[in-house]
């Protein structure tokens, strides 16, 4: 029994640490609230326990217990639903929304992280059972390193170039370089936009990136990340200064316009480069035969 105890404890500790580190590695710092974090740590602990007891259960051998473990693992599908519902509810009262694509992406990540925790705990406890507890100090950190490294998705900066764009008016049309953003009528709003507005051009590096930028969900994610850090001067009854991203129809790049509380163009561009490429929006044209042919 003592031997199994060490196996289980090593597995649980490795799994729990994995969940903890993955919670902090999230640069958006979501969930920001201590209670939200506690929920995920608790679920992570349960996941780690599941992974850790699997090896002793098989070795015993107690196949009924193993079957129950598999059943219990199914429960983690609910984590995705929980996150999705939670974020969608909050969305209704937001001035600048995340968009359903972004929410779906976040929810999927939270579900996947629990499976990574189970895997980490399982592998660690297996190694401890086979070779003894000192090996937990090698396997645990290695698993944690792999799960943080492998699961960090692409960032927008990998697939696009972000350059400053000039904000100006052509008649009543607000433009960032040659991208039409919106129609503005009132002179005082125009003046404010010219004084405080920032514009950037987001240029895709290839056809895949162009398709990614085409997705409205991806644009909404860019705007949400920018606004959640730099702020914006939109209010419920004053939509005139709404940050917007529009496409240059012929050339496929985006023009992004924002009136931020912190008008710092360099950081604006840096934030855009750090926006995650959403899984649901990622373009894959160049992976297909005709896509590559058409791109010539």
């Amino acid at each position: 029994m003592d031997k199994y105890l060490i196996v289980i404890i090593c597995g649980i500790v490795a799994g729990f640490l994995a969940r903890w580190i993955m919670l902090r590695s999230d640069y958006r710092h979501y969930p920001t609230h201590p209670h939200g974090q506690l929920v995920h740590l608790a679920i992570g602990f349960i996941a780690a326990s599941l992974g850790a007891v699997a090896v002793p259960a098989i070795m015993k051998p107690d196949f009924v217990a193993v079957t129950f473990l598999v059943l219990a693992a199914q429960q983690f599908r609910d984590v995705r639903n929980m996150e999705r519902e939670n974020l969608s509810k909050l969305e209704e009262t937001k001035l600048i929304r995340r968009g359903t694509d972004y929410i779906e992406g976040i929810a999927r990540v939270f579900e996947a992280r629990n499976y990574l925790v189970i895997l980490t705990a399982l592998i660690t406890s297996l190694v401890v059972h086979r070779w003894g507890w000192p090996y937990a100090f090698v396997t645990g950190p290695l698993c944690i390193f792999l799960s943080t490294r492998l699961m960090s998705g692409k960032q927008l900066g990998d697939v696009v170039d972000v350059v400053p764009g000039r904000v100006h008016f052509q008649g009543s049309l607000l433009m960032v370089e040659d991208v039409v953003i919106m129609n503005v009528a009132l002179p005082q709003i125009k003046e404010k936009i010219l004084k405080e507005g920032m514009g950037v051009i987001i240029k895709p590096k290839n056809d895949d990136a162009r398709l990614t930028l085409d997705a409205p969900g991806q644009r909404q994610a860019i705007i949400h990340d920018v606004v959640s850090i730099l702020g914006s001067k939109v209010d419920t009854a004053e939509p005139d200064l709404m940050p917007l991203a529009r496409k240059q129809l012929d050339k496929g790049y985006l023009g992004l316009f924002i009136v931020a509380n912190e008008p710092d163009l360099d950081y604006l561009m840096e934030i855009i480069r750090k926006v995650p490429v959403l899984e649901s929006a990622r373009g894959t044209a160049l992976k297909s035969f005709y896509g590559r042919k058409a791109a010539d």
Partner: protein
Amino acid sequence: MDTGLKEVILAVVTWNPAKVSGGWCPVFIAQDQKEMEKISLLLARILGGMVHDLENDVFIIVKH
């Protein structure tokens, strides 16, 4: 639940009435450019909409 009219013209403001006719939305007639801007600003704030310029002395207010 929050309901409201979106993506439709909520009001038209002009100082050149000959340019607008009919329709179901109210048309506000101003004396000059300045009054037109003022009326449309107030209307936009009240309706929570945006003022758009048709560049023919007609402003429209639309909620997005």
